[in-house]
């Protein structure tokens, strides 16, 4: 099939797609967007997390045919032209990246959290990231990074509100 979808705001097309292959495969192998990682292909690790219609999902569990005409957001779309997004910046600053394999999925999950929940508690952060496995960091630096990103986000938006 010919698959038409919007990725990170841009309309994209892939040809000769097998409808039963995963959205993850389409992104990585057909659209040249290897940011989303493939580790388990069974929904367990979260390294393939992307936004589908604004909601974080495992791209490995979405059939390509189901993505027709849908809107997808990947880790590649988090930063704008010249600036990292708050979660990306915070991951770098906190040292929350070691091998980096889990990072793209965690960034999308964390980005969703800080956009949805102002000032999340540690329990809320843990819950939001429960579907993302990291084998390197032990999660402490990741927690730190998300707290940091959330604080920055709340700070900047309340400043905006005061102005």
């Amino acid at each position, binding site marked *: 099939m010919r698959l038409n979808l919007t990725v990170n705001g841009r309309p994209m097309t892939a040809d000769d797609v097998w409808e*039963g292959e*995963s959205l993850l495969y389409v992104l990585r192998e057909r659209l040249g967007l290897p940011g989303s990682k493939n580790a388990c292909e069974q929904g367990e690790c979260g390294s393939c997390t992307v936004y589908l219609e604004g909601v974080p*999902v*495992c791209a490995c569990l979405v*059939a390509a*045919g189901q993505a027709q005409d849908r809107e997808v957001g990947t880790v590649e779309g988090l930063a704008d032209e010249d600036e990292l997004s708050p979660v990306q910046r915070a991951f770098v600053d906190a040292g929350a990246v070691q091998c980096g394999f889990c990072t793209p999925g965690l960034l999308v999950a964390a980005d969703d959290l800080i956009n949805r929940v102002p000032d999340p508690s540690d329990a809320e952060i843990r819950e939001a990231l429960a579907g993302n496995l990291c084998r390197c960091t032990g999660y402490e630096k990741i927690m730190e990074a998300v707290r940091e990103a959330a604080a920055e986000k709340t700070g900047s938006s309340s400043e905006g509100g005061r102005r």
Partner: protein
Amino acid sequence: MDFLRPADWSEALEAKAKHPEATPIAGGTDLMVELNFDHRRPEILLDLSRVEQLRQWSRLPEAQGGVLRLGAGVPYSRLIDEVGAALPGLAMAARTVGSPQIRNRGTLGGNLVSASPAGDGHPPLIASGAEVEVESARASRTVPVAEFFTGVKKTVLAEDELVAAIRVPEATGPQQFSKIGTRNAMVIAVCTFAVALHPRRETVGTGIGSAAPTPRAASEAEEFLAAELAERDQWRRPTPLPESVVDRFAELVVNATAPIDDVRGTARYRTHALGVLARRTLGWAWEEYRNSAETAGRQGCA
């Protein structure tokens, strides 16, 4: 492969009538694992994710007694947010499913039709007395959730039928759900137990998961407890339950199961754990009932 993309419910039913061999796909959280690992290669996929009717829920007219009709394709995360207050037992179970990403996609329809003995949606539905609304281009029927399963991964669905919705009576009393697993997220249940108190009907509902080929109610435990409560006028004047009653209830729950040894746990462990879950969940639910009865009583006096 053919990929059918019905735009609405009647198109979906027609497609299934025309291609009974087509495999429906909703959230894909069960099916895509099988496709990715080449365990299954369906000739035709029938994508239900665009069928708006499946993604809606509604309250049936009051005459039908406070029943919520949940479209088969409403994902867990929306069930938790939107109907969690009316269906607390189901919401508790939904919160234990997989991870946020899985809950954003996975559906109750998929959970029922996959018919895993460990499906977390099943016990609270059984405890609430829920029914599955099954439909084909020919006809529609409703099946009590406990009768929907005929074996491991087997259901009563005919090959031209789809699950339209699940009808769940709104909670009229406390409900609890508890699940045993190795961690708090992303866990297939070792065993689960759901209990629902129905003060208006003066009955008790139960549901057991992962301790038999199909999920089931512990009917004898339900009848025993309801009789005890009635005899001691406990629905109107609740007092702490005697330990002997709680123990007997747990014993009857365990008697209703037929657990096996598998990679997640032994039959013996499951039996023990279920007794513990039954005691605890009944304790929590009864405590909540007593507190609410007390509050209601005080309000009545004032």
